């Protein structure tokens, strides 16, 4: 029988399997950031160890830095301590570090791809659950905890059992105004937040093939939001064209050689998947979430659900709790719900294409008077620079947005970009958990274009009226 994409990469990375143990996999790449690495570095140091391959690591700062100013002084004292620890640790252990002011400083999951550090056929990990993003290149990429970060630092390996495999086939083409973000929100709503637990997922089908690398990364990024550790997409010409010429990607003949191998990285015709899901992408509308987990989403034209719409008792309870928290009434239309803040950015939607799409909607408009704060936060120094070269920053600023510096920002609100209690945020990030963007804040997840439209209207709305 044939092999799946996941099995091909998994099998080619098994170093050894000790009797009675999980197989030990070689890890080709590790991304490092300030929040989940200090304890790993100090563990290495305490045990008198060194990094086995410091050159297969890449570090930057993103989670808790200020997006107002690119200085240590603008960060909180505790954030400063973490940033200084990362600076000192990367220096001591010989790891490449991208700091303030560099094109390659920014959200780790944007830095890996834009530098060509992320490559098809590799295993890539990071102490962050959204590491699934890199699966868009046909890499086996997943988030790990700090002890595992330390294990990779010390050994360049991880013990990993084989995951089950799930194929998610997206047939048809997305309509105008419907993006990768809408597709993934629709998938998560269909599968629920735990539907992918224990699986490595492969996204495929016409709609996925038609996506740019940016769109594919948005899709893979949120695999973890339905519980799947990895969300992979077979590499193709779109992937190769994106990687060609990137700083750390192979060059010349070596690139051609690599491409030949990468072309074999697809699931065989007769490969067996443990589960298969099909979704018709051509009928999808823009999606938004109405609840407090990413699986609680609906097409923009839908009404707020009733708890009894759900068959499962746990889901019913969860719906009720979510509606109380987010202050929506069952039966009301989602469209028209007033919004207070708008956030465009994050590892889900902080890439250049995201700002281009949002700018297309915003051009010539102003944000509504009831919008108290609208933030545009590019995912990296490079994204920011390109956007500025294209004049996008001007469109955002003219509309009334604040144009900030790269970082995770209000996606997780670890820095000072927070939403106050009861404030409703139209957000392009990935989690709408209780308190995620600030204590008692209310999050609606959506695409950058929809977020831009919500900023103009001051409420949840259908972006297609602007296109």
């Amino acid at each position, binding site marked *: 029988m044939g092999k799946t994409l996941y099995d091909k990469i998994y099998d080619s990375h098994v170093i*050894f399997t000790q009797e009675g143990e999980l197989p030990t996999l070689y890890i080709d790449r590790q991304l490092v950031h300030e929040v989940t690495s200090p304890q790993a570095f100090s563990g290495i140091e305490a045990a008198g160890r060194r990094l086995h391959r410091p050159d297969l690591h890449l570090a930057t700062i993103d989670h808790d830095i200020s997006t107002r100013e690119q200085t240590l002084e603008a960060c*909180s004292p505790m954030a400063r301590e973490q940033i200084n*620890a990362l600076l000192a640790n990367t220096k001591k252990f*010989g790891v*490449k570090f991208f700091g303030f002011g560099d094109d390659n400083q920014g959200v780790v999951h944007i830095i890996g791809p834009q530098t060509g550090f992320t490559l098809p056929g590799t295993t890539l990990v990071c102490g962050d*659950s959204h590491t699934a993003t890199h699966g868009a290149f046909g890499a086996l990429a997943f988030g790990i905890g700090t002890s595992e970060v330390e294990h990779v630092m010390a050994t360049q390996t991880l013990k990993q059992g084989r995951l089950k495999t799930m194929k998610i086939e997206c047939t048809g083409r997305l309509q105008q105004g419907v993006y990768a973000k809408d597709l993934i929100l629709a998938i998560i709503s269909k599968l629920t937040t735990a539907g992918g637990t224990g699986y490595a997922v492969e996204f495929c089908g016409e709609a996925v093939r038609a996506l740019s690398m940016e769109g594919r990364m948005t899709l893979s990024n949120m695999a973890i939001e339905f519980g799947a550790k990895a969300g992979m997409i077979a590499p193709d010409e779109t992937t190769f064209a994106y990687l060609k010429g990137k700083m750390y990607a192979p060059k010349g003949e070596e690139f051609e050689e690599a491409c030949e191998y990468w072309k074999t990285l697809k699931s065989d015709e007769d490969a067996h998947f443990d589960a298969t899901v099909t979704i018709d992408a051509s009928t999808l509308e823009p999606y938004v979430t109405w609840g407090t987990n990413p699986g609680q989403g609906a097409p923009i034209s839908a009404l707020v659900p009733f708890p009894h719409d759900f068959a499962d008792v746990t889901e019913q309870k*969860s719906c009720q709790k979510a509606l109380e928290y987010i202050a929506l009434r069952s039966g009301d239309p989602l469209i028209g719900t007033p919004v207070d803040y708008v956030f465009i950015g994050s590892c889900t939607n902080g890439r250049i294409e995201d700002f281009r799409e949002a700018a297309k909607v915003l051009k010539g408009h102003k944000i509504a008077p009831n919008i108290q704060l609208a933030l545009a936060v590019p995912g990296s120094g490079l994204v920011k620079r390109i956007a500025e070269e294209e004049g996008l920053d001007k469109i955002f600023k003219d509309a009334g947005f604040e144009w900030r510096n790269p970082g995770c920002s209000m996606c997780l609100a670890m820095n000072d970009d927070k939403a106050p209690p009861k404030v409703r945020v139209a957000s392009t990030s990935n989690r709408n958990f*209780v308190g995620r963007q600030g204590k008692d804040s209310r999050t609606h997840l959506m695409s950058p274009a929809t977020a831009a439209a919500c900023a103009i209207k001051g409420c949840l709305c259908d972006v297609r009226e602007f296109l």
Partner: protein
Amino acid sequence: MQKFTEHTGIVVPLDSANIDTDQIIPKQFLLAVDRNGFGKHLFHDWRYLDEEETKPNPDFNLNKKVFAGASILLARDNFGNGSSREHAPWALMGYGIRAVIAPSFADIFYNNALGNGLLPLKLTKEEVDKLFVEVNKEPGVSITISLVNCTVKLRDLTFNFTLDEFRRHCLLEGLDAISLTLEHEDEIARFEKNMESWKAHGVTP
């Protein structure tokens, strides 16, 4: 890693599914560079009425006298979903929790717990239901978990559970995963020698 062989303790119920890592330990407490001190912030948003953590929420189970000193947590499906933060098991362990019983766990949390000597114990939905009934009938009741026999006992109720044999062995012995792997340095070096050149290029500072 702290060993886990057998443990008896008070079980505290948290009757919710999808208890995510943002609830277990909110992000403002991730601003630390060591592994200690997270226990006092465990379930911060539920446990306290104020940001400064001076006013405990009397309605939250962990704050009820009857559950004082609880060391086993009982919850519903998909416990620990969300972020990869290992601060979640650190906070649970820091508070004194040694095991979490639920019908299912999120993958990353599950791994992180096992790597820290915190036992994520899977029972069936029906068994978890039964435990909730018993604990609600007699709040403050203790249960005994044996990793040697893979059993959970509450008075005359006994449930069996399973855990991957290697994981179980590591927990029982409190083994350090890195030392175990470093015994295979030669195999790792051999693997690296055969790596394709396009992949082997490293990044220099």
